[in-house]
């Protein structure tokens, strides 16, 4: 058994039922088959994570970042996905019965052959999402979600959620599954803070060296 296989087996058998992973950084992790039933993943970062065949019954994913995450074959029955950011997320043969997908962003996401029975779509954004072969019986507030945008022909970048004469219909997000980092400024601050810490550390080390021994 290779190192990776060993790790996968461990992840497969591991269970975090009811675990508290609030605001956890789980970016790009291979979490195939993990059991996160009733776990708290509020505000967790699951960017690019692979959660295929995971069991996530009634997991709290509210405000989580599911950007480009893979949920193929996962069981997400009754999951709370309120306010999640799931641009380019993949849901293939995923069980999303009675899931709360409210106030969420799912631009260019795939919901292929999913079970969406009784899911709630209130005020969510599904621009460019596709729902081929999904069971949508009893989906709540489907008419309160947004599926298409209209672009202003005046090159101003203004958008409308209702059709307007002369405006272009936009069936998908133009940036695809990629996201524009609106928090770039924050990142810049974080970097500068880090740099200044390094500088201070360097100065302290230099002072220590210069200090007379003994």
């Amino acid at each position, binding site marked *: 058994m290779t190192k990776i296989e060993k790790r996968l087996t461990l992840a497969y058998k591991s269970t975090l039922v009811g675990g508290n992973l609030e605001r956890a950084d789980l970016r790009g992790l291979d979490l195939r088959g993990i059991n996160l039933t009733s776990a708290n993943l509020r505000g967790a970062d699951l960017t690019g994570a692979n959660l295929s065949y995971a069991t996530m019954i009634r997991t709290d994913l509210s405000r989580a970042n599911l950007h*480009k995450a893979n949920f193929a074959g996962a069981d997400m029955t009754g999951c709370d996905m309120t306010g999640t950011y799931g641009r*380019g997320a*993949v849901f*293939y043969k995923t069980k999303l019965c009675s899931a709360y997908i409210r106030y969420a962003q799912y631009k*260019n996401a*795939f919901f*292929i*052959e999913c079970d969406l029975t009784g899911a709630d*779509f209130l005020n969510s954004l*599904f621009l*460019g*999402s*596709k*729902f*081929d*072969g*999904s069971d*949508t*019986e009893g*989906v709540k507030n*489907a*008419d*309160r*979600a947004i*599926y*298409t945008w209209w*672009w202003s*022909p*005046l*090159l101003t970048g203004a958008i409308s959620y209702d059709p307007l004469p*002369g405006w*272009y219909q*936009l*069936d*998908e*997000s*133009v*940036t*695809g*599954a*990629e996201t524009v980092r609106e928090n770039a400024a924050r990142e810049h601050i974080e970097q500068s803070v880090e740099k200044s810490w390094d500088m201070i550390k360097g100065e302290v080390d230099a002072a220590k060296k210069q200090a007379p021994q003994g």
Partner: protein
Amino acid sequence: MRHRALELRLQELELRQVFLEGQIDEAKASGAEKGVIGELMTQYVDVSARKDEILQWQKEDSASPKYGTQVRVDGMWRPKLPEFGSMEKALEALASPSGGKGWSASAVRAARERQTQGDTQEVIRALDGRSPLLPEDERKPFVTTL
């Protein structure tokens, strides 16, 4: 297509129409002033116009329903949601190296090309007479006071 609120509104308008018909007949029979009959007839026309508007909207909506509206699929009410149209296409998009996310660059290019087309320029002219894209003599002045 199922819009309970609109159906109720339509029923209400139909009742109002019947009521106004009766009122007009009554006014005519009792030899009321032409002004009174005219007022009632204006109301009748207004109501029938509202009714026609709803019927027209319903007709258009059932011909091409908006996403999210309930449509009959195999005798069951289901919301209409965006789809590729065929499962092969959906699976192809899922299995593509970019994870089926590589189609957007072409969409941007297509949108840009459309923006430079002649008809778009016409739309710009029609919609916004103040666009800097217009020659100065054709441009409308900015109104700075409300």
